[in-house]
């Protein structure tokens, strides 16, 4: 039986002026200077599946990832992680839950330029009380292998190409334990061959019981998806 990773029920998200009622029926701009991104939007992301969210630019892919990953708060509706509603937790507990449950790959990679590859990879480990084997070179090398990187660990992030930066960002997401992986355009800066390697790695993670959610408009990824969600269709 398939386990529910994340369930979204009647999600609503508005950007712009606050306090007013969401007046129009659909997604888009209303007359009050508000941009309605989601209105009564529902969906289920299963554990062990690779889900791909796609749609044109501005359709709300990154916003949805932020909401799913507890980086932003919905204006209405529920988001449950398994059976837990993290928005009913205190902010402190929610932050702790977020750190223990999620791993992220950002569209702009989120690497710190002044740090070396090794420092970037070990940054998440500094903030978590994890067993020593997570901090070992073997673990770092395993994550780098999964992300198809063959670079010296001492190289500065500022000196990496766009593709290399994305692969290091992917490796950084994999060095820590997580249940749900959220990726924002992970293959945007990669060549086709590397994109396939990354897709296989992500699919492999899903097959090992993780929930993998990707926001992407790269058609190459669609062949790996267990579930495709088109935001333009609502």
């Amino acid at each position, binding site marked *: 039986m398939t386990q529910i990773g994340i369930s979204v029920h009647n999600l609503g998200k508005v950007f712009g002026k606050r306090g007013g009622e969401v007046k129009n029926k659909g997604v888009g701009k209303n007359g009050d200077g508000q941009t309605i991104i989601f209105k009564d939007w529902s969906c289920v992301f299963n554990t062990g599946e690779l889900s791909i969210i796609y749609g044109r630019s501005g359709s709300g892919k990154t916003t949805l990832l*932020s909401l799913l990953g507890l980086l932003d708060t919905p204006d209405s509706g529920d988001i449950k992680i398994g059976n837990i509603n993290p928005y009913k937790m205190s902010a402190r507990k929610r932050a702790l839950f977020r750190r223990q449950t999620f791993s992220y790959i950002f569209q702009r990679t989120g690497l710190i330029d002044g740090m070396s590859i090794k420092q970037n990879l070990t940054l998440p480990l500094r903030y978590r009380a994890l067993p020593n084997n997570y901090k070992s070179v073997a673990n770092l090398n395993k994550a780098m292998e999964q992300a198809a990187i063959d670079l010296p660990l001492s190289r500065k992030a500022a000196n990496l190409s766009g593709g290399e930066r994305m692969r290091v960002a992917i490796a950084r997401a994999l060095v820590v334990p997580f249940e749900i992986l959220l990726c924002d355009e992970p293959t945007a800066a990669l060549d086709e061959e590397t994109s396939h390697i990354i897709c296989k790695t992500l699919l492999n993670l899903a097959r090992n019981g993780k929930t993998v959610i990707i926001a992407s408009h790269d058609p190459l990824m669609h062949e790996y998806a267990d579930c495709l969600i088109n935001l333009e269709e609502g």
Partner: protein
Amino acid sequence: MSSLLLAIWSLWQRRGRVVLAALALAFGIASVILGLSIVSGYQKEIEKMTFGAYSRALIIRENKLVLDVYGPPNLADGQALKSSLEGFENIIFRRSSQIEVRHSRETYYTKAVGFFGDFSLETGDRLYWGKLPDTNTKEAKRQCLLGYRLAAKLKILRTKTKPKTIIVNDAICDLVGIMAEPESRIEEAYGLAVVMPFNFLVHYVDNSEDRGVDELDQITVIFKPDVKLADKTRKADRIMRKNHGIPQTHASGFTYNDENFPLKALEKQRNLVGMIILVLGGLSVLVSALGFGVIWVNMLTARKSEIATQIAVGASFTKLLLQLIAEVCFIAISAAFIGFGLSYFIGHALQEMLGITIIIPPIQILWIVGFSVLLAIIIAMQAILSVALQPLSNLVK
């Protein structure tokens, strides 16, 4: 520990801006320290030049306007004052006498002043040559200190080998020193005098037959700073009346002069100048702290994505806050040290070039540095909170 290490790493990565931010604050701190040091030096200089220790002294003399039945102050009065008055720093007994002073073929008629107690508080301790006579002893030591102008009159100022003795009213006296050229009103009063121990004056120099050996011209009571002279004057008068049997219903046989009184206007002027310097210094600290804040906000804005990454990969709000506070504290404390160093060197340079007195008061400096560091941290905290409390999705974009 990881917050501290990350703070150090982060500062090192932005060392250029860090130095700029620290310097912005350091200049403000330096200017206020310098301002305060100049005011302190100016205050001391004014006190020294105009009032001497008289600025906080009570001078007790015989009141010549009442019938001469009570006599002048004497040594017993001095002892009574010493044992009953509180809050004094020193009590000096003074008696003067007309003398004839001779050296080689030169003779000069002037006055000798005999002291018992640390007279340098009254006359100043700047010397042209030699040392001060020992006036703290009850022995009648034959030691003389010549005023600068008297030494010139006796033609012993420019001689390479100073004479060992001079003759004062036919008594041989060891010449122990010559005062420096007078630079103040007080020092000028001793320019033509011979200063000697009280007991040498009364036993060997003073030939007057109508004065007892315990009689004094003046008792100077120098109080510790911040003592109320009016209260002490009333207490001193009660002691003097008791010793001389003067009823409260009669006019006092003594005068209690506050030499500082006519010079209050100058003191007000000094305080006003000091206040202006301090206000300017305070304003410069404020401007510096704001400048520091602006640089810090700029640094934080440039780091928004780095902060977002740190939060997203697991940094708790507390750890992040600790890291940023550690960074601000490090910069602010470094600025305090730089500011102190700058003010020290600029102060010394001003002292050398302009000849003004600079005194760095340590307690006030600690307050200023503490206040400046706190102000900088408060300003920086606003920026830290405004960034750290943003929704994470805003930081990531």
